[in-house]
């Protein structure tokens, strides 16, 4: 039976043992589950669970630009829609796009633009749909991590995948991958996206209060977490396609034995 979350302010965000409300250490990521190629009609798709975040991403494209006037003559246009389901948060969210969703759609698109080889598909669009089915802090970062997988799953040529993670400050201490309560009652939040080979930061936002040295520490922490997530992305992709190989080979062996 689903237990409805209790949206009241927690007494403490960090306990005497230095553990957070969900039992994590300050430098620990939430449990992450990544899946690729789960939708039938989309050209590419991916699903991520990060803590209580549940986010589904679909990619359509490259496809003909509709309406034609949005097309660019020498590259594909990337369109991105970050949208939250009404039931995804504590207080039902109106399904109409909010200003926050519009801003997030923009920064997410800008985090992925640098890696997609858009020059190969002039006059087309590559459409990314990010649906947040359940939100618990850090959804834009989880969305970017999943969106990279969905783009790869669609077979769209890209230099590499982009991984994203946020670091925040709670009760004066820097903490990795804030949950919603930690973000709400904490002192700062820094979402970061990294393109590891190129060494480029393609998403960087911050709100709250940080000294320069706190920012420096937190920023470095986030970059390291991005590298960890990037390795997970690669593993998921390779595993997905390797299993097709293995399943067929197992069948072959079974038939030979029979």
């Amino acid at each position, binding site marked *: 039976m689903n237990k409805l979350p209790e949206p009241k302010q927690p007494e403490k965000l960090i306990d005497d043992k230095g553990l957070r409300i969900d039992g994590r250490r300050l430098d620990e990521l939430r449990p992450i589950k990544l899946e690729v190629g789960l939708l039938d009609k989309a050209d590419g798709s991916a699903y991520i669970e990060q803590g209580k975040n549940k986010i589904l991403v679909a990619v359509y494209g490259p496809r003909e630009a509709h309406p034609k006037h949005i097309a660019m003559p020498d590259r594909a246009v990337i369109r991105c829609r970050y949208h939250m389901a009404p039931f995804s948060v504590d207080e039902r969210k109106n399904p109409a796009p909010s200003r926050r969703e519009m801003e997030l759609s923009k920064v997410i698109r800008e985090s992925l633009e640098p890696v997609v080889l858009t020059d190969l598909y002039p006059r087309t669009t590559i459409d990314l749909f990010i649906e947040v089915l359940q939100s618990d802090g850090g959804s834009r970062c989880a969305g970017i991590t999943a969106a990279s997988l969905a783009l790869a799953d669609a077979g769209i*040529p890209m230099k590499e995948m982009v991984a994203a993670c946020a670091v925040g400050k709670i009760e004066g201490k820097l903490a990795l991958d804030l949950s919603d309560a930690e973000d709400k009652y904490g002192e700062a939040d820094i979402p970061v996206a990294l393109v590891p080979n190129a060494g480029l930061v393609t998403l960087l936002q911050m709100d709250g209060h940080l000294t320069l040295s706190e920012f420096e520490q937190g920023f470095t922490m986030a970059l390291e977490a991005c590298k960890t997530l990037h390795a997970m992305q690669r593993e998921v992709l*390779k595993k997905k*396609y390797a299993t097709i*190989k293995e399943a*067929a080979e197992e069948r072959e062996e079974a*038939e030979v034995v029979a």
Partner: protein
Amino acid sequence: MDMVLVAEPKQVVAPGEVLAEGDHLLGDNAYRIGTKIFSACVGILEVDGNRVFVVPLKGGYFPRVGDLVAGRIVDIGLSGWLVDIRAPYEAMLPASETPGPRGPRRRDLSTSYEVGDMVLAEVLAFDRTRDPLLTVKGPGLGKVASGRVVEISAAKIPRLIGRKGSMISMLKKETDCQITVGQNGVVMVWGKSPESERVAVEAIYMVEREAHTRGLTDRIREMISRSRVVEQVAGTQTA
């Protein structure tokens, strides 16, 4: 300079994965930063001499001049037809690229092809600045009047054809069907019976699902002969 392979050939690689280091030649879906060569897609690493490339496991159809494609008429324009060839661009088949009389005695376009018709065509022209142009002037090209239409990922077509056509020849022979493979992932199948067409269609989907596995040709051959046995048994029972 030393040329070193970092990833294993014939294995799955992901975008951004290091494939090799050194002076290799770059083939499809491989790019270089400094001395390192990276993959630009999810695919199988292939090495041909000192050329490194990645065969994508997924991806839509990107037209090339000379390709044989099977497409569906979606609209009739002033001077030709718009054809859906499952590419990011809609293709155009001009009336001038169909066999038949020219000039005022030419019949109204809608009497040649209708919306919804399937056509086998060749890509006549395509570049970055314009949509693909098709022609049906050529042997075996034109409207397709019958048969099954099978749509698979264009990335799997090379596997469906096989080395020197080995896979497709086997399929045609074992299923006793006529099969025309469009480079755009659309395959036309004609069989002597609905049963044999069904087996051929099933075999084509199996190739798509298991394209990058060993022993595929044998497994498909077995699947087809098993279906034939079932058919025969069913046939004798009703006889």
